């Protein structure tokens, strides 16, 4: 008898999809909201159970859907990392929905509110599937579902600007998934498999065949490029600032906290389970990811420094943070990949915290989005101000916060034995310069929102007095939870890193 918790990954995917279907029948936006949030908390509990069981026992398992073995049936597979990330996604989506409640009420038409939650359910289902799938083509199908759902939540705030952002996002995404699909088609024509374990044995047999080196390099390159376009790695990030900067706060938070990461997890799984990290480095794809990651860290930060629009500044900072993940992945070592996974988790909590808090600050300042008009907003809405401060300081890399640990473990991974010297120097330089630039734009922004001297004035001279704005209770809960998680990740990183390193071995 297999343990019962092995059913949970499937239950999570099924439950969220079912909630999506039920939500179509509920026309009341408020009830739809409760259904989504409760189902996601349930999923978080189930995923956390899977994580704890697999991490304690140090095992992974394969789940055959309907007891049909592959290639007839479909397979899910989970170890500690997949389950942990699925848990993180549930929490992130829930906190974002809770924190962005006020904005959602303003931005989404009341009769369309239930549609928004359908898309959230679908998004969650596709993220779980991307975490758990054991099949390349299932991965492709859920990438597309994820894209449609993500595009819909961007355009939920129905104004011209968001539709333009959506169409740019859609076009870039389609190019990305087209390249990914072509990559797996070529891989299929070389090996005749789509299931990851079968592909692993097949690729292992032919990897050092000199005749097949270039075809395999093309495949690895196409899969990597396809997924990096979708996760907005520099230079494919052009769609991100407009999409994340113009959408409603919840959508921006979910997009940068969860959606971008879904593709990266699929990529990590492919790197570890179809190829090996060493193969990826041998085929050259690892170096490309590494260089683009380092470039993104600096380029994203430079653009964030130049930005005056609060949400777009945070969006450009996402470009830089995605660079950190790829820098770790591009090192192609266990420590590097574990650092990348840690950065996924750290960023998944920090960025929604920033977006949600920025949404609160913007609300408290008469919906002015320019940083200049957010002067003193922290005093008008202290919970949002504290959230923004904690998030910003974590991004800068203040010790005891999650962002610091990321920089630390990435630096340690880069200094490990066996890493070429140029990679070591590039990685450390990129981390240093990027941290400096982060401080350059986050610290002034934080000082700006706590400013007291002059009277905070709007563009037409209107005065926003203190205490006029009261945030909703879910907002406070979400900000408090995310602050706490950022702090816990920063303080108790060592045990988590041990689990992650063990988990990368189990991928």
């Amino acid at each position, binding site marked *: 008898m297999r343990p019962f918790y092995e059913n949970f990954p499937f239950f999570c995917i099924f439950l969220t999809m079912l909630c999506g279907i039920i939500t179509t029948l509920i026309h009341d936006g408020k009830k739809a909201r409760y259904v989504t949030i409760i189902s996601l908390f349930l999923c978080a509990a189930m995923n956390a159970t899977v994580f704890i069981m697999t991490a304690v026992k140090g095992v992974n398992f394969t789940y055959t859907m309907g007891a049909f073995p592959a290639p007839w049936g479909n397979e899910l597979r989970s170890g500690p990392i997949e389950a942990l990330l699925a848990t993180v996604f549930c929490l992130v989506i829930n906190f974002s929905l809770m924190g962005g409640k006020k904005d959602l009420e303003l931005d989404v038409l009341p009769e369309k509110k239930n549609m928004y939650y359908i898309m959230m359910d679908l998004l969650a289902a596709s993220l779980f599937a991307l975490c758990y799938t054991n099949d390349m083509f299932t991965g492709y199908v859920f990438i*597309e579902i994820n894209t449609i759902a993500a*595009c819909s939540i961007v*355009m939920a705030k129905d104004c*011209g600007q968001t539709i333009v952002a959506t169409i740019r996002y859609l076009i870039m995404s389609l190019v990305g998934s*087209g390249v990914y699909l072509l990559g797996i088609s070529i891989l299929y024509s070389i090996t005749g498999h789509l299931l990851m374990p079968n592909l692993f044995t097949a690729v292992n047999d032919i990897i050092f065949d000199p005749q097949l080196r270039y075809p395999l390099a093309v495949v690895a390159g196409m899969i990597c490029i396809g997924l990096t376009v979708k996760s907005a790695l520099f230079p494919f990030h052009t769609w991100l600032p407009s999409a994340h900067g113009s959408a409603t706060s919840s959508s921006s938070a979910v997009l940068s906290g969860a959606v971008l990461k879904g593709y990266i997890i699929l990529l990590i799984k492919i790197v570890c389970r179809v190829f090996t990290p060493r193969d990826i480095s041998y085929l050259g794809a690892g170096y490309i990811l590494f260089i683009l990651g380092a470039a993104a860290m600096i380029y994203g930060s430079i653009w964030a420094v130049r930005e005056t629009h609060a949400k777009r500044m945070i969006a450009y900072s996402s470009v830089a943070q995605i660079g950190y993940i790829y820098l770790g992945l591009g090192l192609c070592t266990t420590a590097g990949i574990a650092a990348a996974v840690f950065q996924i988790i750290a960023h998944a909590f920090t960025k929604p915290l920033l977006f949600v808090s920025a949404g609160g600050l913007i609300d408290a300042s008469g919906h002015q989005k320019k940083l200049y008009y957010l002067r003193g907003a922290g005093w008008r809405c202290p919970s949002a101000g504290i959230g923004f401060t904690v998030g910003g300081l974590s991004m800068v890399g203040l010790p005891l916060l999650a962002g610091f640990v990321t920089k630390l473990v990435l630096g340690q991974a880069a200094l490990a034995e066996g890493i070429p010297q140029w990679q070591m120097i590039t990685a450390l330089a990129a981390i240093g310069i990027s941290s400096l630039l982060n401080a350059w734009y986050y610290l002034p922004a934080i000082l700006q929102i706590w400013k007291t001297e002059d009277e905070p004035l709007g563009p037409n001279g209107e005065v926003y007095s203190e205490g006029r704005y009261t945030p909703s209770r879910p907002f406070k809960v979400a900000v408090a939870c995310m602050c706490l998680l950022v702090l816990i990740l920063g303080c108790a990183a060592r045990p988590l890193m041990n689990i992650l390193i063990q988990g990368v071995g189990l991928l």
Partner: protein
Amino acid sequence: MHLSEILATLAANRFATASAILFVVGMAGMIFNRNLFKKVVAMGFMDSAVFLFLTSVGFVEGRLAPIVTDPSVPASAEVYSNPLPAGLVLTGIVVSVSFTAFSLALTMRLYKKYHSLDIDEIMMKSQRNED
């Protein structure tokens, strides 16, 4: 390698060649075309290229479709071509149809708002609205 050899290789891999050309045409169209409607058509090109490639991978000259008409004859894998790519292509077509519908709906919305299909013009207008 002589030109004749190159041509012979290309002819032998004619499906792969055709799909590579289609894919590049589609991708270039999607990135460089300014007209949104043409971008959507280019997306169709790109998807068709992948479907052509996948179908040709599954097709083996001289083999039958994997349908057993006479149950008394034991089925042999040698007689039939691989049905999996065809299944993948079907899934892919469904995905691409839904994406085409979605992007056309978005394009219509933008046209109603800005009375243009030119992406640069639309972006300019939307940015002007923001300021």
